[in-house]
């Protein structure tokens, strides 16, 4: 087992070749179904071929459907997409309805590798405000302010800083220590 099974790749949904901006194009280019003519596991595939396949192919001339009989092999499907990806899927013991649904899914897919979507949309231009600069979202009242401005030149912090508080505490401690020493000396005398 390789690590590809453990970690699902993540990404954003993208339309291949701006599909849909002009006209919609079916993204699957060919589907190959391999099956056995006699084995029980291919029963559903044989039913699909006998009853549904002709109509399915007539309705979907955008891709080529190949049938490949393989003696005593488990049936499976290989879908090839326009972006060069290839998908395998086992049809072992599938019935006719299941096969119709899965083939239809393969037809409507874009061929992107299976991934967890980080978001359900994607844009090349995430900001409609353009590139950020230090002047973006500036207070508009600054446009009509005349400088030097008393209000803006005022010191922000009037309370003592942490450093100042520490220094004060240190001085206080020193004072207390010296007083204690003096009282001790008086007692000893």
């Amino acid at each position, binding site marked *: 087992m390789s690590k590809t099974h453990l970690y699902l790749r993540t990404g954003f949904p993208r339309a*291949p*070749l*701006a599909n849909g*901006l*002009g*006209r919609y*194009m*079916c993204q699957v*280019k*060919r589907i*190959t179904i391999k099956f056995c003519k006699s084995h029980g596991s291919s029963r559903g595939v044989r039913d699909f071929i006998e009853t549904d396949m002709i109509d399915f192919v007539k309705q979907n*001339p*955008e*891709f*080529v459907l*190949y049938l*490949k009989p393989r003696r005593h092999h488990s049936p499976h499907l290989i879908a*090839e997409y*326009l*972006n060069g990806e290839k998908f395998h899927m086992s049809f072992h013991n599938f019935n006719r309805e299941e096969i119709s649904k899965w083939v239809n899914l393969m037809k409507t897919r874009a061929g992107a590798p299976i991934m967890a979507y980080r978001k359900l949309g994607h*844009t*090349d*231009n995430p900001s*409609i405000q*353009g590139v950020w*600069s*230090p*002047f973006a979202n500036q207070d508009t009242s600054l446009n009509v302010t005349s400088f030097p401005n008393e209000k803006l030149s005022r010191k922000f912090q009037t309370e003592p800083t942490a450093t100042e508080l520490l220094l004060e505490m240190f001085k206080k401690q020193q004072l207390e220590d010296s007083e204690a020493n003096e009282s001790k000396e008086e007692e000893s005398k």
Partner: protein
Amino acid sequence: MSIQKLFSTALQAHRTYLFSIQAHGFKKDVSRKLMELYKRKEDIEFGKTPSPPPPRSSYLEWNYDAELYSFGKRLGEHIEPNLLAQSLTQRSFIVVEEEKQKAVGIEDPILNVQENTPLVDEGKSFTSRYVKQYLRIALPFFPEEGIQSVHNYLLTEKVIANIASHIGMNDIVQTAEYPIETSSLHSCFFALVEAIRQSNDDHTAGNFVRDFVLTQLGGKNVNDLWDIENPEDKLNTIYRNHGEELPEPRLVGASGKNTILANYRVAFYNKDKQMIGLGFGESVQIAKEMAARDALRRLFRTSERDAPIKYNLDINTSQQKKVNPSLEEWNEKILLQATG
């Protein structure tokens, strides 16, 4: 002789047999391991690059006629089968096939397909004409130099070959080389456009070009595809054409002076004290240039505030539209009158 000794081989065989049927199944990992080892051997021991996968046409499940039929259906176009086959056949393929037949002893090699060379040039000129015409209508305020630049970008080998491979041409183009070169895809795409044009009319072929080539501008900024030199001079030229005073650049913001993160903001103002362009940069000179570019973008209606290009316009190819004005003679008033 004890019974055990007498039947030891049989018992042994029996045990082995049982053991072997217990370890049943098809060991998939063995073939995978061997393939991986072979690949590494090729890479490291012989210093070779891994060989490309075999061409799709060499597979058993390959029917070229069916592929051609579904290719036409996928594009949603009616194309004459002979023209379609011709448009996807390179000259190199014909040459190789003829040589093959001669090697077998056939004096006059017969091939039931023609090469696409006569289609390529006509298709290329049609595509070029249509792209320019479409851009002029979609971007009526964009100068002709910009239209040319965007047109040149769209018709580059890289862009066209990418489109061609994404509509599935890389598998079905008949050519001598493998893997297929981008130049082959480039010329085959134009041959395909010409095949569509000859099978239908200019309007259908034009819509095909619109849907597949022009949509490549989606999500792109047309200003990035056109490099303007000295934008400030160009802005002044336009204001001279308008007969107005030249716009004045002013420093409207500065932060982090004399640091590595210095930032200046410059805006251009016209004679009515209206801001026409705003830009920023790490020096005043760069900020001024960016502001001039912004002012030009706003004039050409291609800034980020303007509506994106429409991809559903119906262009009448027979009707010749006048070219857009060049930068030197660009005049907003005349253009506004022309567009209504």
